[in-house]
């Protein structure tokens, strides 16, 4: 592999890793902060992608308007879901959480089939961003992918700032550490959890919407992201946003170079990485 190809592969790795972080961020939030195993995370990602496809003709005004409307809609959805289903799960054990969220996956899949059908759909990238940047004489890099990476970086910075520099972030971190103490301090922990859940759902849906022009919209897209998201969260350490970012980038590099250098093993390399990390650090790379 010559040097310029190596650099391009590094760019591919970085871009894929950042996309993984974007998609996994919602799961990290819900799983890490609230301790709820949310198997329906993939379904929220799918809902976001289908919203990007379905809302565009209804809302008009272009990609970014659809994005804004979609984010608002998913915050509302998250709020309602938490109130109706998830609020009962905090005290229960993980098996019950798995059962309930698995049930939600099935319900969302059927709803998707009923409302949007079973065909594959494409979403156009917004017109300002559908160009490409030439990298050598044969290949060029799509501008939209660079845009996604920029969004991920902004999101990571935003999350860090909210968690470490704002009151809300402080309360959320306190709630994770000791729920009862926070309640006895007079802070409405249920409302806090509801907000966090809604944000987690919105993040997943936002990831789906942003990635839709690149990944297209089709049945079963939720399941394929779900597993890799869990791998990201497990490698990074449950509850750690920083860990999720590092893990996502690590997976990006292992997957990209693995495909090129070891194609026979490419499918298992990520899981081998996870096993290796867990052998070394059973709780993942970073503490919350």
């Amino acid at each position, binding site marked *: 592999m010559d040097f310029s190809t190596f650099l391009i*592969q590094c760019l591919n790795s970085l871009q894929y890793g950042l996309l993984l972080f974007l998609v996994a961020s919602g799961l990290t939030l819900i799983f890490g902060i609230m301790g709820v195993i949310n198997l329906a995370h993939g379904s929220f990602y799918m809902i976001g992608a289908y919203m990007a496809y379905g809302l565009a003709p209804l809302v008009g005004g272009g990609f970014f308007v659809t994005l804004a409307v979609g984010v608002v809609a998913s915050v509302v959805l998250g709020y309602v879901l938490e109130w109706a289903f998830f609020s009962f799960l905090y005290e229960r054990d993980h098996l019950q959480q798995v059962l309930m969220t698995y049930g939600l996956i099935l319900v969302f899949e059927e709803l998707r089939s009923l409302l949007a059908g*079973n*065909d594959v759909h494409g979403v156009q990238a917004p017109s300002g961003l559908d160009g*490409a940047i*030439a990298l050598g004489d044969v290949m060029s*890099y799509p501008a939209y*992918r660079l845009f996604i990476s920029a969004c991920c970086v902004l999101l990571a910075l935003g999350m860090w700032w909210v968690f470490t520099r704002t009151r809300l972030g402080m309360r959320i971190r306190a709630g994770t550490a000791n729920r009862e103490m926070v309640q006895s301090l007079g802070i409405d922990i249920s409302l806090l959890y509801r907000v966090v859940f809604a944000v987690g759902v919105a993040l997943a849906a936002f990831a789906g919407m942003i990635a839709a022009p690149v990944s*297209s919209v089709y049945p079963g897209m939720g399941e394929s992201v779900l597993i890799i998201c869990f791998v990201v969260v497990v490698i990074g350490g449950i509850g750690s946003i920083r860990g999720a970012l590092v893990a996502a980038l690590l997976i990006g590099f292992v997957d990209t170079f693995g495909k090129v250098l070891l194609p026979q093993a*490419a499918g298992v390399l990520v899981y081998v990485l996870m096993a290796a990390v867990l052998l070394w650090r059973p709780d993942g790379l970073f503490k919350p």
Partner: protein
Amino acid sequence: MMNRKHFLASAGALALASLSPLARAQAQGKLKVGFMLPATGTYAALGTAIDNGFRLYVDQLGGKIVGREIEYVRVDDESDPSKATDNVNKLIKRDNVDVIVGTVHSGVAMAMAKAAKESGTLLIIPNAGADAVTGPMCAPNIFRSSFSNWQPGFAMGEVAAKQGHKKAVTITWKYAAGAESVKGFKDGFEKGGGKVMKDLTVPFPNVEFQALLTEIAALKPDVVYTFFAGGGAVKFVKDYAAAGLKSSIPLVGAGFLTDGTLEAQGAAAEGLLTTLHYADELPVARDKEFRLAYAQAYKMQPDVYAVQGYDAAQILALGLKAAKGDAKNVKAFSDAVVGSQIDSPRGTFTLSKAHNPVQDIYLRKVAGHENVYQSVASKALADPATGCRM
């Protein structure tokens, strides 16, 4: 002294036993066709198209084949090979179907072929292209109305070589269908004097192609052959164009790359050449009739899967006529079907001794939302059926 319970139990058993000859007599009446197709999941649309195509032909015959009314039983295979044996046994043992029609996914079809081989039930495969089904797994009661993965690949290989390309790179998912399609291309391309530089694979169902697209750009072949279907096909074609490769290295593929995906692919697919045993604007009169009838009956346009379902029904009708309605007379069924011409919307085709279609493979070019027929890439192409001993 005989207990009342024992008496009632034996009387009941005797009564049921005496009923069964009556039940068998009833069975000659209705013909049970068991559909094992995907009703949910990625392939649900294909399952529906096959179901529709099959029923269209039966309805055109008046709902009866050789005087026997058709009764449909359906099982959703969810395109899941791990549940396949259980599902097909539901049809064979629980529902006692006379004919099984299915399926889309090759992994599931292999399990079905194994079960059908053991039970002797007629099996007509309206899509799954696994070469093995009419290769090492072939059997007198297993038929296919679609294609083998090797066929479109071979045809495209010959076309690519004829176009003057010397070096090719292939890329597909690492699974049987991809490997068989690529092998077909390799056979055709190398026969025409070309050489395949490298076979790139992506673990199934991974759709992150960027790393390999960069690899392709580094290898600089004359042509790239690919096999992807469904969501993966949409993403690959879009990624290929977005990486700027479409204008520098021509992309060719098996027809599934652009079948049912053109609306999603948009401009990225424009001008792509693919090979398949079906196309839009086919100069075949039967196709025009079929499209009209299908659109009237189901309020949507048919696709290659609907044609395959339609032809599965034609094969069934042809075979049953020769077997005088007896679905157990596999020899008469098979002798009739292998010898005859099937008048299909794709053109006429015959079934090989291994029970796979011997058919024309067409070269198609994407124009707007259609795969427009260009020419016949390979006339009356038969799958080599390596390993079939029949």
